[in-house]
C-alpha cells in the first residue's frame, strides 16, 4: 500500500503457527475461544488437583489467596467480596485468564477442555449452574454473569473534574482542624529501623 511505502523494512512477517502460539486472548463475544467443552463435575476433579491448594475445595479461597466464589450482593457493602460470581462481568475473562496464567507457578499447562471444565466448576461453586452443566465454545459467550451490568466507563470528567477545578481557597479555609485518624494507632507499618 502506498501509505506504507516509506516504512523501515524492519522485522519479518509473523508465521501463522507463531501467531497461534501467542495470540490466545479471548474477547467477551467469544472471539479467540478454541473448540472444546467440559462439565462442572469434571472441573471439580481438576480443580481439586490443581487449584484447591490455594483457592479451596469450593473455590472459597484459603488464607490470603483469592476467593473465586461467593460474595453475591455485597458490592455496595462495607467490605465487598469480589469474586468471579459476584463481580466479573464476562465469562470470557475467566476462561482467558485461567488458560494463560493459571495455575499460579505452572501457567499455560492446561488443555482447552480442562479450562472449560474448570470454568464450569467455578460457575457451579457460585451457584450459577448445576453440576452437570457443560460449558463449551458454543455457549460461553452467551452466559450472562450476575454483575454484567455493574460497570460504567470512567466518568471522572463529569462527576469530579467539574467540582474540583478553579482557584482554591488560600486563607481562612476552615475554622478548626482536629485529628480524626492516626496511622500509629493501627500500628501496621513494617519496622524500618536499621539497627546499627
Amino acid at each position: 500500500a502506498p501509505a506504507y511505502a516509506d516504512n523501515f523494512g524492519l522485522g519479518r512477517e509473523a508465521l501463522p503457527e507463531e501467531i497461534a502460539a501467542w495470540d490466545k486472548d479471548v474477547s467477551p463475544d467469544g472471539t479467540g475461544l478454541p473448540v472444546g467443552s467440559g462439565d462442572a463435575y469434571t472441573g471439580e476433579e481438576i480443580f481439586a488437583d490443581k487449584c484447591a491448594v490455594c483457592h479451596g475445595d469450593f473455590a472459597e479461597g484459603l488464607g490470603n489467596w483469592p476467593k473465586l466464589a461467593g460474595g453475591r450482593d455485597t458490592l455496595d457493602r462495607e467490605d465487598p467480596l469480589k469474586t468471579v460470581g459476584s463481580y466479573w462481568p464476562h465469562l470470557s475473562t475467566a476462561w482467558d485468564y485461567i488458560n494463560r496464567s493459571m495455575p499460579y507457578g505452572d501457567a499455560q499447562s492446561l488443555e482447552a477442555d480442562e479450562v472449560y471444565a474448570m470454568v464450569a466448576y467455578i460457575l457451579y461453586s457460585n451457584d450459577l449452574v448445576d453440576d452437570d452443566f457443560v460449558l463449551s465454545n458454543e455457549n460461553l459467550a452467551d452466559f450472562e454473569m450476575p454483575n454484567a451490568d455493574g460497570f460504567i466507563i470512567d466518568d471522572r470528567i463529569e462527576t469530579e473534574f467539574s467540582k474540583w477545578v478553579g482557584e482554591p481557597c488560600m486563607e481562612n479555609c476552615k475554622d478548626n482542624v482536629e485529628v480524626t485518624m492516626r496511622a500509629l494507632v493501627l500500628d501496621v507499618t513494617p519496622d524500618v529501623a536499621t539497627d546499627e
Partner: protein
Amino acid sequence: MSNGPSRRTFLRGAAAGTALVAGAAHANTPDPLITEVQPWASGFGDGVDVTPYGLPIEYEADVIRRNVEWLTADTISSINFTPIHALDGTITPQGCAFERHHSGAIELRKEDYRLMINGLVDRPLVFSYADLERFPRENHVYFCECAANTGMEWAGAQLNGAQFTHGMIHNMEYTGVPLRTLLEEAGLDTAGDLSDKWVFVEGADASSNGRSIPMEKALDDVLIAFKANGEALRKEHGYPVRLVVPGWEGNMWVKWIRRIEVMDGPVESREETSKYTDTLEDGTSRKWTWAMDAKSVVTSPSPQSPITHGKGPLVISGLAWTGRGAITRVDVSKDGGKTWETARLAKPGEKMALTRFYLDTEWDGEEMFLQSRAIDETGYVQPTKTQLREVRGLNSIYHNNGIQTWWVRANGEAENVEVS
C-alpha cells in the same frame, strides 16, 4: 510492631539535631573534625578498579525499596515501595524504584526477546530486540504510578511513611520507539477506521498482564522503551523492553512486552475487569479509569524523615504529578488546610512527569499539620480525601489522589493522620 522505627529514628536524629543547633550558633571548643587531620585527608581512598558498577555508600543503606508483607498473599504477585521520603529532585534511581509483579520478575535475554504485532494489521510482524534499536528513538521523562498507590489509605490513615503511602511510583527518562512507528511498520490500512480500534498488549511473563488501550492513545504518546535513566531497563522493570503509557495507571505499562494486537474492541481482560476497576458506594464500578489525576505529597518532613535540626530554617519538600498534563502550581499548608502558601517549583512542571516543589520556611517549633495541594494545567485542584470519598465511597481501592496530612510534633517527629 511499628513503635520501634519512627521512635528510634527520631531519637537518633534528635540527638544529632541538638548538637547541630548548638554548633550553629557558636562553638566554644574547636571541632576536632577540623583541627585534627582525618584519615581521608591523609591516606588513600579506593582505586578506580574497585567498583566497576557502584552501589550507594553504606551510610545510605536505609534508602531502599520496602515490602509490606500483609498486603498480599505472597511476594511474587506483590508490590514494594520507592523510598521517596529520602530522595530529592525528580529522577528515581532505578535500583530503588518500586516493583509490581504478578508472577515475579522474569529473566529474558535480548537474544531470546521477540515482539509480535498481529491482528488488524496489513502485515503481522515479529521484531527482534536488535530490530527495535534500528527505529528512530525518542527520549521522555514520565512518572509510572501504580493505580493502587495510596490505596491502603482509602479507609483512613494506615501506613506511617510517605514511602508506604505514596511510594508505588517512579520517574525515569525513557529511551524508546513510539508505538505508532511500530504500528505503522505493520500497516494500519486493514484496520480501517482507527477511531474505534484498540490495541491489546501483553507481557512475556506467566501473568501476561494483558491490557486494552484505545488506538487514539496508542498512536499518541505510548513508547516501546528499552532504556531508562540512560541504561538498559532493570530486570524487574521489564528488561529488555517495556511499554511506557504516559499519565496512565502503572498496570498498563506492560513489562517484558511480547505482543501487540490491533483489535475491534477491548479484550476486557482480568486486569481491566476483576482488577483495576473502581467500585463506588452504590456497588457499581468504574472501568477504564486510565489517567492518574493530579496528586502531591510532602516527602520531608514526613514520618520517615523527621525534623532533627530544631527551630529555624526548614525546607519543606515534596513531589507533585498529574496524568493530565503538567503541574502548574503546588500549595502547602502548615495548619491542616486553614491557610495555604504557594510553593516554589524546582523546575517548571513537565507533562506526565514528577515535579519537585519546595517551601523554604522558618519553623517556630510548634506542631504543624502539613499538607500539599497540586494544581495541573487543566485547572484541576487535588481534592481532599473527604471530597473523594463523597463521590466514591471507601471501596475504590485504586486512584486515591487525596491530600495527605503529616502531623509534625514539637519534637520534630511526624505521623500520618487525617484531619477534619
